[in-house]
């Protein structure tokens, strides 16, 4: 199916569908803005990390976690505008080929949080084609919600790296993430099992 004709889905709905399938303490890195807002709204898990800044770094951060913990599956939720700032990271991921990394590209075609301005991908940039061109063979668009569910199942059952493109509508986020970066980092490290502290967390 042509990328431009894909059925547009809701970010919050897809995020809830993803979270519902995570049964093995998988790490999820929510990119800046609405990508992590809806991850927060879907219900906090100790293995969720929420980015309050550093646009474009969701995939590099998830890659660092994936390399450090090869036995744990890691998901990066990255917006289309953010990915455009750091397209090179797709080549980096393809070269290192971490089996435990899945990237979800939340593509609503706009900088929604700043007023819905169109991104420079409006000229026809296709993120799945770009990913495949970078060497990521397991890169596909999800055609609808049922296909999304099946793709997530595949990513949880097979070796990656995987990338799924998601065409989204302009539904606003369901909540806003709390903004205390040291606390978010501390809770995530406890969720990763690497923070050993007698302080209650």
């Amino acid at each position, binding site marked *: 199916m042509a990328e431009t004709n894909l059925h547009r889905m809701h970010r919050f709905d897809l995020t809830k569908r993803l979270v519902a399938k995570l049964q093995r303490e998988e790490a999820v890195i929510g990119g800046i803005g609405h990508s992590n807002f809806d991850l927060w709204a879907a219900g906090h898990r100790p293995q969720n990390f929420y980015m309050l800044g550093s646009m474009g*770094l969701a995939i*590099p951060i998830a*890659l660092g976690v994936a390399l450090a913990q090869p036995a744990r599956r890691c998901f990066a939720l990255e917006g289309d505008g953010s990915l455009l700032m750091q397209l090179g*990271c797709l080549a980096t991921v393809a070269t290192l080929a971490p089996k435990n990394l899945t990237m979800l590209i939340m593509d609503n075609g706009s900088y929604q949080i700043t007023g819905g301005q169109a991104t420079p991908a409006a000229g026809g940039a296709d993120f799945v084609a770009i990913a495949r061109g970078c060497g990521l063979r397991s890169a596909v668009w999800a055609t609808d919600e049922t296909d999304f569910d099946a793709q997530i199942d595949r990513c949880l059952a097979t070796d990656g790296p995987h990338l799924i493109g998601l065409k989204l509508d302009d539904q606003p986020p369901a909540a806003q993430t709390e903004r205390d*970066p*040291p606390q978010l*980092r501390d809770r995530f*490290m406890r969720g990763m099992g690497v923070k050993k502290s007698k302080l209650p967390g």
Partner: protein
Amino acid sequence: MSDAAADWPDQIYALFKEHGIRQVALVPDAGHSRLIKRCLADNDIKVTTLTTEEEGIGLIFGGWLGGEKGVLLMQSSGVGNCINMLSVPIAHRTPCPMIVTMRGDYGEFNPFQIPMGNATQTVLEAMGTLVKRAETPEDVAPTVNATLRLAFNTYRPTATLISQRVIGAKTFGK
């Protein structure tokens, strides 16, 4: 007694092992080539060649979140590429040690290297990075050791700037 003039890259590698460094992220620089070779030959160190230094700030942060210590290697020009991203280790209070080979600071031949080379320490410090300079080969190992200790014990970005006096000013055969 070792010959520091030639061996400082090996001394940095030895410090990586002493500090338990498991991830090294880099944009290659000629000044780091011997250290990079040592890291690539070590199965206990994951070397990531980056497309931009910004990626490295995210990678080192993610590695720390996952329980591994990392170091970022780059040239001084690369410092300019990742200034905004230093917000990540500052905001989250995490280690981000950087070892920067300098251009544009001592005997530079390329006019284009001067602006960023001259500004490297200032902009790093403006973003809250603790910066120490190594001006001689003998300075390198103790300065890198201090940079690693400061990063991992006090949870912040730190940098050693290795002077062109140590590396030798490049001439590209001129």
